Each structure stands twice: as structure tokens, then as C-alpha cells.
């Protein structure tokens, strides 16, 4: 008896290690959990998978036995009164009771995790607001004011390990810290899904939804948008870098200082030269605006306007600045005033007015932008 038990134990050990512990974990099952709630979900998933497997084995055994034995070519005589046997009379009651028992066991084991997920008084050491927009993620650390946007790394090819799973600027989070994640969107539905560290909820216009994470191990965690958000849905990955608390504090202070320096630079009285502004502008344009207007400035006919030779990009500077600051209502052209400081906007506009043969010769200065805000 013990021998059999040991055999079974070692067999399940092999199977579960196949599923959980080695390289296959990420390939054929949910990734290895790195958060306590995700760990609970993972256990729940393994338990329901096991129940599902057992039910399937039982069903298959019954059917296969019947297929082998109860056949006409074996001369089996059909039992015309089987449905009138005691089993036939009571199956309608017995089966629901049995299934109800299984259901109850499943619901009960989900109950605790459900309570954790819906805990409205859960404490958090820090809060990050995550905003999805077509087709990038913006992060804002509400405690320190650090904010940035995270875009797909477009340099990778389908051969690369992290193709469509890499970004220019990952979200950095400290380990062993309770982080509240607030989700919202500026346009359509999105869903921030990094399976190893947090369950997902949708980002919905007009709503702020919430998840939490408490990352247990340092490392890099990857995911992507899970709710169909249109053309770029496959192209908005998420990368989270979990670092020690000390490293995180260091990183945060750097970001705060860099933001302050950039703000100071933007509001300084310095006259910027054409070369400086074109270089800054080209970088920012290609990163943010080229998704629609294309690197060539030619746009996509009928969908995204061309800027090359466009009336606005070669006409009145003020109108041009206004368009970029406030967007064009009712179109895909968003308002950019909260995403960029005056210097960045000035650089982008300078670039648009001088690239692709738009040679207007205008160098827009940060103060020109400030005047239009």
C-alpha cells in the first residue's frame, strides 16, 4: 500500500515539477507566481485543473468501458429496463447532489482568495497610477510625482527572445512592498496584464479600477495588454523591473532630480539653436508622434494626416502650437500638454516645421509655448 502511495506521490511530483518548477513553467502553464495573491490564484488553478482532470478520467473510463463491452457485435443484449432500475429512478437526484458537492468544494476554496481580492481596506505602501492609451502605457508614482511613458521597443525582430515583450522604459517597483495599482485609460478599453505579479482588471474610460501587488523576488516580469484596444493591441507590452528597496529609492531620487532639471531647463531663458531643437525634436517625434504620422511625416492617407507640407505645420506658428497642446477634438489627435514640458513641445514643433522639406526656418522657443498654454 505504502509502495503504491509513494509511487503516486513521486509521479505527481514529476508532473507538477514539469508544470511548476522548471523552464516549462513559463511555456505551458501560468508563470511562477511572484506575489502572495497570485500564489493563491495559482494554487486554486492547480486544484481546479486537478479536479477537471479527475472528472475527465472518470467520464472517459465509463464511456470507454461501455464502448468496449456494450456492443452489438459482441452480442450484448440491451437492457431495456435499465432506466427503470433504482439508479434510473434516482439518478436525477444523486448526480446533482454529487456535482453540488464538487461545486461547493471549489467555491469554498475560492472564497478566501476572493475576500483578499475584494478587500477594500487593504493597505498599501505606495500607489502607481497606470494609464493605458492607444498604444502605450503611462505610469505615475503618486507618492513621488515621478511619471513617464513606456513604449514598445521597436528594434526587435521576431527572432528575438523579447520580441513584442520589451519596452523603452520599464516600470520600476521595489520588492516586498505593497503597491496599489490604479488603472484608467484616455481612450478605449485596455488591460494591464503581468500574470506573475498581479491579476488583471480592465482599464475603462471614466472608471478607476484597482489591483495590488507585493513582489516577492527581484527580477524582470513581462506581460502585455489583454483587452482588445484596436490597431496596436498586440504592440503594447509591459515590463516591470523589481529591485531592492534601496535601489528603488535611489532610482526614484534620480528620476525626481532629472525631472526637476528638465523643468528648470525648460523654463530657463536660454535661446535654443536650430541644431539643438532639431535633435531633441526628432527623437521625441519619432518616439511618440511617428506611430500615427510616420517617421516620414507622410501620415496614413485617409486616417492620419500628413505633416509634410501640411498647412498647419508650415503656416501660423501659434495655430500649430495650439494643435499640439490641445489636440483636435473628436479625432485620434490627442492633447499633449500634460505629457510634455514647454521645451519638448517647442522642440517637436521646430522639428515638424523644418523636417521633410517643410523648411520654414522657424526655431520655436519654450517661452513661445508657455505663452500659448
Amino acid at each position, binding site marked *: 500500500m505504502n509502495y503504491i502511495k509513494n509511487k503516486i506521490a513521486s509521479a505527481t511530483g514529476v508532473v507538477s515539477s514539469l508544470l511548476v518548477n522548471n523552464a516549462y513553467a*513559463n511555456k505551458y502553464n501560468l508563470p511562477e507566481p511572484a506575489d502572495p495573491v497570485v500564489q493563491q490564484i495559482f494554487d486554486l488553478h492547480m486544484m481546479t485543473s486537478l479536479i*477537471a482532470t479527475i472528472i475527465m478520467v472518470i467520464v472517459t473510463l465509463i464511456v470507454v468501458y461501455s464502448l468496449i463491452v456494450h456492443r452489438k457485435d459482441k452480442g450484448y*443484449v440491451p437492457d431495456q429496463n435499465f432506466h427503470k432500475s433504482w439508479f434510473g429512478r434516482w*439518478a436525477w437526484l444523486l448526480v446533482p447532489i454529487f456535482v453540488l458537492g464538487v*461545486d461547493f468544494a471549489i467555491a469554498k476554496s475560492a472564497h478566501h482568495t476572493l475576500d483578499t481580492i475584494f478587500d477594500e481596506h487593504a493597505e498599501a505602501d505606495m500607489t502607481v497610477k497606470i494609464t493605458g492609451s492607444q498604444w502605450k502605457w503611462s505610469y505615475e508614482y503618486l507618492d513621488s510625482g515621478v511619471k513617464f511613458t513606456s513604449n514598445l521597443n521597436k528594434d526587435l525582430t521576431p527572432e528575438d527572445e523579447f520580441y513584442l515583450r520589451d519596452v523603452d522604459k520599464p516600470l520600476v517597483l521595489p520588492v516586498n512592498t505593497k503597491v496599489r495599482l490604479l488603472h484608467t485609460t484616455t481612450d*478605449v478599453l485596455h488591460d494591464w496584464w503581468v500574470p506573475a505579479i498581479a*491579476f488583471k482588471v480592465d482599464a475603462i474610460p*471614466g*472608471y478607476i479600477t484597482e489591483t495590488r501587488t507585493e513582489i516577492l523576488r527581484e527580477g524582470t516580469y513581462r506581460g502585455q495588454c489583454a483587452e482588445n484596444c484596436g490597431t496596436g493591441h498586440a504592440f503594447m507590452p509591459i515590463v516591470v523591473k523589481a529591485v531592492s528597496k534601496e535601489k528603488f529609492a535611489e532610482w526614484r531620487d534620480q528620476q525626481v532630480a532629472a525631472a526637476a532639471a528638465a523643468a528648470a531647463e525648460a523654463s530657463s531663458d536660454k535661446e535654443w539653436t536650430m541644431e539643438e531643437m532639431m535633435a531633441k525634436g526628432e527623437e521625441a517625434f519619432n518616439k511618440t508622434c511617428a506611430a500615427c504620422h510616420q517617421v516620414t511625416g507622410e501620415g496614413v492617407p485617409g486616417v492620419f494626416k500628413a505633416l509634410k507640407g501640411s498647412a498647419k505645420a508650415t503656416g501660423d506658428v501659434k495655430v500649430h502650437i495650439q494643435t499640439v497642446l490641445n489636440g483636435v477634438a473628436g479625432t485620434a489627435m490627442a492633447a499633449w500638454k500634460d505629457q510634455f514640458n514647454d521645451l519638448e513641445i517647442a522642440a517637436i514643433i521646430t522639428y515638424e516645421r523644418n523636417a521633410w522639406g517643410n523648411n520654414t526656418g522657424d526655431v520655436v522657443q519654450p517661452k513661445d509655448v508657455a505663452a500659448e498654454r
Partner: protein
Amino acid sequence: MSTDVAHEEHHHGPPKGIGRWLFSTNHKDIGTMYLTFALTMLFVGGASAMYIRAELFMPGIQFMEPDFYNNMVTNHALIMVFAVVMPAAAGLANWMIPMMIGAPDMALPRLNNLSFWLLPAAAVMLILSTIVPFMPGTGTAVNTGWTLYPPLSIQAGMGMDFVIFTVHILGVSSILASINIVVTILNMRAPGMTLFKMPMFCWAWLFTGLLLIIIAPVLAGGVTMLLFDRHFGTSFFDAAGGGDPVLFQHLFWFFGHPEVYVLLLPSIGVIAMIIPTFSRKPLFGYKSLVGGMAVLFTLGLVAWAHHQYTVGMAAGPTTWFMIITILISIPVGLMLLNFMMTMWRGAMTFETPMLFAVSIVLMFSFAGVTGIMLAVVPADLEYHDSMFVVAHFHYALIPGALLGLFAAAFYWLPKWTGNMYDERLGKIFFWWNVIAFNLTFFPQHFYGLAGMPRRIVDYNPAFADLNMLSSIAAFAYGISHLLFLYIVIKTVKGGVKAGNKPWEGAQVGTTGLEWDLSSPPPFHSYATPPVVK
């Protein structure tokens, strides 16, 4: 029924020429048209599926714009659900229900004509929705998936308006067809054919028809509100105007979850006929199957938001929808047990319809157990919108609906045409179809768990090998349907004569009257009602 003079004239044969079909009020001719339409659309919907699988064959964009890709996903789903499974099930109802209950025809023959002829109009609309975005200035293609969630569906171009009208026309068609079938079942039964003597297929359609009458108007209302948001400045679903994008999801799934049972129940009815026939013993638990369907009907109407666990509902409603969804396993379990116990101690033979029925019992059980996994809220917060869900509902929809329709075709083709189909080809089709189906969809569970979302045109190489397997198997699966087409054409053209009762075990258990008629049956099924003892 009808006192129409013209009708009396050709009482003994069908009218000649195209008029026979255009103006038909005959349940068998309309049934044939429904089935032909469904089979044609199966190839259209299948072609878009092949396109999707070709794109997903390997990482990198092969040949599709992302929006066109998701347009194919949308069309595929809408076609399969509304233009294949539902019309085919309606075709079976048209053909079989009057013959089973001893009626001369459907209760409302002219309505029957209208409800069919709306379908080709809807199909044209749907195809236009794909073509229109290629014209300049019409905006993006319908890239939302069949769920049509706003705000994305508000952003989409003119194609969306065509989809909305498609849904309207389809809704009218299914409501009319459902009214007709329900009225026929309730009013046209031969003397002595009490409700509890009816073949199970009639019960299944009674519940299906009632469900559709309840849910179709809700979807129509939902998409109409979408249309108003798009063009007339309302903001039902626009948060900026005080509306709520999640409201649409509730309207959609109030329709969408019961719709799953609309697709499933007719096929459950079919296999409840086939399994007793080829087990040569009565259906186990006739009354409990009817009861199970009634419970499924009721629970199915109040389980919808299990598709929306991730919209941030409060704990109360989330728990409600989880419990109701888990409870659905009870009637489903009961149905499957009844089928298994019908086979138990029977004397089985394995003609093609029976092969399909047995495989459905096994594969639909599998959809049931992954359904339970999905119903558990915390776990669904990981599974949701991944390929795992896609795998689940294809196991539910293909065995649960489509394969049941194939089984029905093999089971009743001899009755319809008077000719036996080619059994050897039928068996080849079965094995080819079912093996390829499993190779296509089983791996999707795993790359779904590993993190591949649904509705994406391109993916990370970690998911590559299983996707390639899925794609290769999918092509084999797709091609197998050409064999089905060939078998059907061959059977229609000729073959061994079938006789009134082609199956030894037909009529075991339930007292359907279809086997008393000749094969093929006379143009007007039962001119004088038979009496059931």
C-alpha cells in the same frame, strides 16, 4: 391548414422552377434552403478562420494589417454563430419537427419564408462591412471582435454601421423563426402526441425558441444604442457624456450567454435522438433531461456577467455570477450522465452519427470542466481574454454545436434524400475532423496559460511552436469539410436506397413519427394527422 387555392392545386408535388424556392412556404424546402445557406457560410466563416491561423502560423506579421486581422476575427465569429450554427439548427427544426409531431407543415409558413430570406440579406450586409473600409474616407475596419465593445466600436469606421444592421436583420430573422417553431410545437402536434411523448429534439427547440425570443431584442437594443452614440450625439456608452461603457457589456452578455445555449441545445436534442438509436435502448432519464434543460434555461439567463469579472464589479454581484455559473454544471452534468447511461448496457453499433455523438459526450465534458475553471473568479482574473478562453469556447461550440449538426446530417440524410450516405467516407470524415480539431484547439489551453492574449495579430516567439501546431492542424481541420461537402452531394445524387427506417434502432424510446413516412417524405408531410397511441 391553408385554404389558398394555388396551394391546393399542386398538392402532390412541388412547384417548378426558381419560384419553388423564392416563394416557398414548404417546411422541407425552407429547411433545405436553411441548411444549404449554413453549409455555404461554413466555408466563408472557415475561410476567415484559415486566414487567421495563417497569420498566426509564426511570429511576425505575415500578410495582414492588424485591423484587417481583427476584422477577420470579428467576421469569423459572427458568421459561425449567426450564419452557420443558428441557420443550420433552424433548418433541422424546419425539416424534422413537423414530421416528428405529425403535422403537415410549420404553423406559420409565410413567416417561415420571410425568416429565411432575411438571412442572405444579412450575409450581404456583413460582407459589405468588410469591403467598405477599403474605400477611402470610411475609417478603420471593424476591429472589435464579435463582442463589439465600445469605445472601440464607436471609433471604428462605416463598416460598423453595416455590422449593426446585420445584427438587426439577423435578430428579426431569429425572432420570427423562433415564434414559428414554438407555435408549431405547441399547436400542431398530432392527437395523442403529448408534450412528454415528443422526441427530445422538439423539447430542445422549444427551449431554444423561447430563449431567443427573450434575448434577441436585448442585443438589438444594445446595438441600436451604439448606432445612436456613433451618429446622433447620444452618450449611452460614453463616459465623457455621463454614459457607461460597461453598460454595453451587460446588454451584450445578457444576450450572449443564453446565446451559448441557443447554439448548444438543438445539438443536445440531436444527440438525445442518436444515442438511443445506436444503443438500441430508450433514452435514460427523459424527464430529467427535460428538467435539466429547463434549469439550464433559467440559470443561463442570470449568469451573464461571468464574461465581465474584470470590469471591477463589486463583491456581491461577482459572487452571485460565480455561484450561478458554477451551478450550471449541475444540469450540464445531468445531461451528460443521461447520455452515458443511455449507452450503458446498450447494444451499440458505431455508424458515423454515433461516432460523432460519442465524441461529443467526451469533448463537451472537457469544455464543461474548463468552464468550471473559468467560473472561479480569482482564476478567471488570470485566464480572462487569453487563448485559454478561446480554447474553452471552441471545445464548447464545436462539439457542443457544430459536430452535433454534422451528426444530425448523417443521421437524417437518408430520410431527407432516400439514399444512404457512403459509410466508409463518413467514418474517414469523422476521424479526420475530430483528430484535427483536437490538435488545433488542445494546445491553445497551454499557450493561453503561458500568457498569450486573444485578438492579437502578432506574438512573442515563446508561443511559436504550439501556434504552428495549431495552424497546421487547423488547415487539416478546414480541408476535412470539403470531404463532408462531397459526401452530401454524393448522397443527394444517389446511393443505396434507404427505406422508411434506415436505422435498426430508430424509434427506440421516443415516439417520433418521422420514421413512419417514406424516404424521402411526401411534399406535405402528414396531410391527415396520424393518431399516437
